[in-house]
């Protein structure tokens, strides 16, 4: 099992650094998988900074990445405001069928993208610690044509 932990303060200036670190770790995976992992992490971290920690530089967000066999697991933790479970569940349904510009929303795609890009997405909040758990099964790579 391989494991790495990365911590940044809740400032948007640091998301690029987190993205580059995850991108480096994911170089071992095919390109059509690595971009999904990096994007999911950035969407999740951005949500934590914006909504859970509300741009507070005194707050921190932790990323724990584990590779075991063919499974990659990422746990993103914060001690900010917890996410409304209804909002989390609503993100499972992302409408990608709107092809008319007038119908398009400018925002609100982040959570839906995470659900679509990863194999499993779970969220839990306990004793003031929120955790978003993302799983990607590498065995599914060959059949993953999205």
């Amino acid at each position, binding site marked *: 099992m391989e494991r790495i932990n990365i911590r940044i303060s809740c400032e*948007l*200036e640091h*998301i*690029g650094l987190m*993205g580059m670190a995850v*991108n480096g770790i994911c170089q071992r995976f095919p*390109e*059509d998988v690595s*971009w999904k992992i*990096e*994007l999911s992490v*950035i*969407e999740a971290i*951005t949500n934590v*900074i*914006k909504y859970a920690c509300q741009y507070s530089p005194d707050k921190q967000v932790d990323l724990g990445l584990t590779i075991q066999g063919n499974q990659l697991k990422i746990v993103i933790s914060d001690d900010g405001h917890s996410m409304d479970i209804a909002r989390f569940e609503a993100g499972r349904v992302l409408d*990608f*069928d*709107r*092809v*008319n*510009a*007038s119908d*398009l*929303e*400018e*925002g609100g*795609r*982040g959570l839906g*993208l995470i659900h*679509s*890009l990863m194999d499993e997405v779970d969220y839990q909040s306990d004793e003031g610690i929120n955790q978003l758990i993302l799983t990607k099964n590498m065995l599914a790579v060959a059949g993953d044509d*999205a």
Partner: protein
Amino acid sequence: MAIRMEVEEKDGILIARVTEKRFDARVAPDFRQKLKERLEGKSKKLVLNLGAVEFLDSSGLGAIVSILKSLDSPGSMAICNDQGMVSYLFQFTRMNKVFLMVKSEEEALSKLSSDKESESQAEGATV
């Protein structure tokens, strides 16, 4: 945070070249504001060159959608030189069906210019 972007106008068409490698939540608000200021009351056609962008997230995508919606019609904007994960993201979200996606700036200018000529001819015909 300020986005690195070159903007010029050619034959009434605005060309914006994002020179930022990571087009994310850090720079998306500045992109939106800068381009809306440049488009206000002036050119209503835009070529967006994403050739230097290696990473795009939903904040960046949302800012691009915002610019599209501020134009007269979806056909007034073309995106060119997208590559790697940027292309994957447009395809994955089906935004490649919303935007006019072309390979080069030249092709984008040609497409938008020909639309402009068609419009001029149509306007001329009604006078």
